[in-house]
């Protein structure tokens, strides 16, 4: 009996345990299945099939899903496991739909970015699966192929068809980490709009606010705390396109933008209309141009730009190698200045079309400024009327710039887009009646009386060079200096190189030496300086042959002071003794001149004739006394050393003048 009671007790206990166990586990199993099927159902609604290696649920209804694979409707894998490492705080409510989910440290890897746009369109089409009201993603990470990674904490919530995404610490980066955003905090609201009648296209409204964090695009870094982002847009997702119409987008204090953007499945067909405007160009230029690019382009480092500017343009094929671009640039009260450059009060309305833009009727534009100064030289006010054609912008009439009391006239002025898509400024230049004295004074050089004029021929400027095919003639020192083959290499780089050839005719040495602190020489000088190069403000190379030529009625003499300068300069030897130098102020010469070249700081100096002792005559005395020979025994010397000697001579000259005046 007792055994029977015991057996019955064990049986009852076993049954009870079984009942308890069944009671305890039944919800779990049913819950797990519910979750699995709900995930399946929700993702299937979005057009995806989800498979998980395991889905576990505990008593607190926390769910962990691992090794999740998502396939699109065509069976292609769009995301690889583990999609979700921890999936907890899941609340099930009757009728057992997932309404709130929290993902902690989820990892999503999308290896197929959906070249046909399916991923983006599906995401736009579904937003959050319908029953899910709130999704919290804590320390989530997403990798989209080799294109980008994002990690951070987001909350997605939807009410009445509007999806809100709130980010607190969102980091986004491309693989090279040079296009990235860090610690973004802000909110995106995405609202599904009612479909238009008889349309299958789905429409959305978007609002974006980002109030902190920073963003980097190559060299451009923007502190979004100082310049917050706000944007409002509508989007329409069709079968083959996504249209994004940005009503407004603003980097507050830097840039405003309006855009209509059509993204198609084939990038080359995409079309983008943009209207960018900067109300305070000074700040925009500083943050978006000078700071990022000043180190590589020193010309920008000291440039300040103020005023207002905007550009309205259409880009077709934005994703292709050669997008077609057309638009209009506006500028108002624009001023660009640096120690070496000034463009003042510029107003502009310039339409433009790239080479491959759709053919349009020629459209006129204007560009006018109150002042233009380059290197201290004033080119005065100017006004240009332009006509835009595909791939070029032509001035409708010659443009005249007032320079040095004369004029530089630019005929056939045009900005041309070349085949390799670089821009080149072209013109035919004509210089008339330029007062050299004013020009040189403006440039900060010693003034020389004279006049500059010439047919500069074809002029062309691009980032590689500014070149002139014609010539200019300076009428100076009673003669002429013809300037040819003028160019400036890499005009916008750290070191631009100015080049020219010069031919001198009939230069009166008396006038020349009067203008220079070099003593006094009389005679006529001719010759040439070829391949003259000036870089970083210093003479870099040249070939020189300048020599005196006898002219009837023109005396050929050299002063003692000039002799001593020559001697000190070239290490030359004034052959006359000290007493003779004291007795006579001027000596006669028969020939005078230098031949030589400068290469790599080595100045090779030759005179007009070889002396018996191996030296070279820089000055060969005349037959009649008083006469003098200056013979150089040094044919090679350091040019920088020679320049420093020149500077010392100048300083001595200054000190001597000061002493005399005292």
């Amino acid at each position, binding site marked *: 009996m007792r055994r029977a009671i015991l057996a019955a007790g064990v049986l009852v206990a076993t049954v009870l345990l079984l009942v308890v166990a069944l009671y305890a586990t039944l919800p779990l199993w049913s819950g797990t299945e519910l979750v699995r099927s709900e995930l399946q159902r929700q993702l299937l609604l979005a057009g995806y099939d989800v498979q998980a290696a395991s889905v576990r649920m505990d008593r607190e209804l926390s769910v962990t899903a691992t090794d999740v694979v998502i396939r699109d409707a065509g069976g292609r894998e769009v995301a690889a496991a583990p999609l979700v490492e921890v999936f907890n705080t899941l609340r099930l409510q009757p009728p057992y739909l997932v309404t709130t989910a929290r993902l902690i440290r989820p990892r999503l890897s999308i290896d197929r970015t959906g070249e046909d746009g399916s991923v983006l369109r599906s995401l736009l089409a579904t937003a959050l699966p319908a029953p899910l009201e709130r999704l919290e993603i804590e320390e989530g990470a997403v990798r989209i192929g080799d294109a980008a990674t994002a990690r951070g904490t987001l909350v997605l919530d939807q009410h009445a068809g509007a999806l809100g995404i709130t980010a607190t610490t969102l980091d986004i980066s491309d693989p090279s980490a040079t296009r990235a955003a860090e610690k973004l905090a802000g909110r995106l609201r995405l609202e599904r709009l009612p479909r238009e009648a008889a349309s299958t296209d789905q429409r959305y409204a978007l609002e974006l606010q980002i109030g902190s964090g920073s963003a*980097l695009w190559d060299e451009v870094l923007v502190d979004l705390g100082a310049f917050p982002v706000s944007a409002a847009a509508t989007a329409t997702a069709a079968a083959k396109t996504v249209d994004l119409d940005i009503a407004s987008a603003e980097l507050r204090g830097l840039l405003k933008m309006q855009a209509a953007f059509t993204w198609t499945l084939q990038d080359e067909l995409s079309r983008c209309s943009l209207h960018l405007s900067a109300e305070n160009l000074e700040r925009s230029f500083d943050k978006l141009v000078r700071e990022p690019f000043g180190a590589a382009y020193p010309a920008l480092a000291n440039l300040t730009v103020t005023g207002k500017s905007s550009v309205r343009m259409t880009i077709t094929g934005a994703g292709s190698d050669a997008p077609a671009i057309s638009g209009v640039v506006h500028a108002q009260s624009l001023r660009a200045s640096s120690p070496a450059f000034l463009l003042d009060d510029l107003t502009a309305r310039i339409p433009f079309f790239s080479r491959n833009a759709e053919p349009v009727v020629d459209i006129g534009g204007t560009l006018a400024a109150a002042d233009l100064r380059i290197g201290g030289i004033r080119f005065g006010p100017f006004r240009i009327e332009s006509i835009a054609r595909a791939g070029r912008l032509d001035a409708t009439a010659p443009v005249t710039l007032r320079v040095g009391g004369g004029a530089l006239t630019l005929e056939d002025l045009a900005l041309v887009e070349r085949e390799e898509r670089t821009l080149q400024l072209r013109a035919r230049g004509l210089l008339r009646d330029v007062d050299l004295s004013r020009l040189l004074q403006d440039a900060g050089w010693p003034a020389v009386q004279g006049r500059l004029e010439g047919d500069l021929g074809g002029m062309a400027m691009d980032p590689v060079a500014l070149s002139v095919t014609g010539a200019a003639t300076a009428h100076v020192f009673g003669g002429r200096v013809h300037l040819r083959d003028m160019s400036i290499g890499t005009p916008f780089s750290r070191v631009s190189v100015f080049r020219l050839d010069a031919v001198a005719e009939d230069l009166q040495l008396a006038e020349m030496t009067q203008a220079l602190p070099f003593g006094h020489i009389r005679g006529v000088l001719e010759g040439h300086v070829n391949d003259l190069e000036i870089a970083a403000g210093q003479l870099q190379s040249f070939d020189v042959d300048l020599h005196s030529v006898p002219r009837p009625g023109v005396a050929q003499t050299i002063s003692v002071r000039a002799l001593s300068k020559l001697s000190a300069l070239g290490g030359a030897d004034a052959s006359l003794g000290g007493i003779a130098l004291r007795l006579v102020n001027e000596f006669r010469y028969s020939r005078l001149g230098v031949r030589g070249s400068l290469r790599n700081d080595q100045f090779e100096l030759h005179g007009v004739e070889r002396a018996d002792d191996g030296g070279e005559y820089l000055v060969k005395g005349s037959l009649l006394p008083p006469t003098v020979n200056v013979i150089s025994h040094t044919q090679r010397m350091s040019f920088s050393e020679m320049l420093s000697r020149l500077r010392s001579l100048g300083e001595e000259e200054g000190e001597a003048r000061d002493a005399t005046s005292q």
Partner: protein
Amino acid sequence: MQRRNSIRSLALMFAMAAASACVTVNIYFPAPQVREAAEQIVEETWGDAAKDASVQPRSSLSPGRLLAMASSLLVADAHAADPDVNVSTPAIRALKDAIKARSAQLRPYMNSGAVGIDRGGVLVARDLAGLDLAGKAAVRRLVEAENRDRTQLYREIAAANGYGSERVRDIQQIFAETWVAKAEPGWWVQDAGGTWRRR
């Protein structure tokens, strides 16, 4: 028969004359001298001399030898072997000064591996993961400026020595090998096969 011999003799003489009239022009690119100059420039701008703040910038380079480069490509060997030209022009000096001034800013990023030297002698922002955005922007700007100056330096060296643009690539390649060879321990460099390795 005699006539035929005469013609043969004439033809032989003509051939000999033609052969002796042949002028051989040796195209000479003085790679060893370029390498020596490159080593000197790298040392001046990025080497110990550049690190030592007490060292005053020299007014002229005196690499000794880019020198034979000075002779143009179409010169006799005897002329090319005359090493008497210095690589010191105002443009080259200005570029070297800029590169040298920037080296102190770039050196920490080279040490950390954020920036490496690729096989073309160009600096590359190779691993910016440890930097904040301001650091990443600084690296991008420094690297861009440095590469522009280096490229212009090679062009100016070619121009200063009378070479056409077709030789710029040769000069760049020699400099590239020198930048890599002179890289300090711990710096990342790219080998000829394109593999990055730490020195």
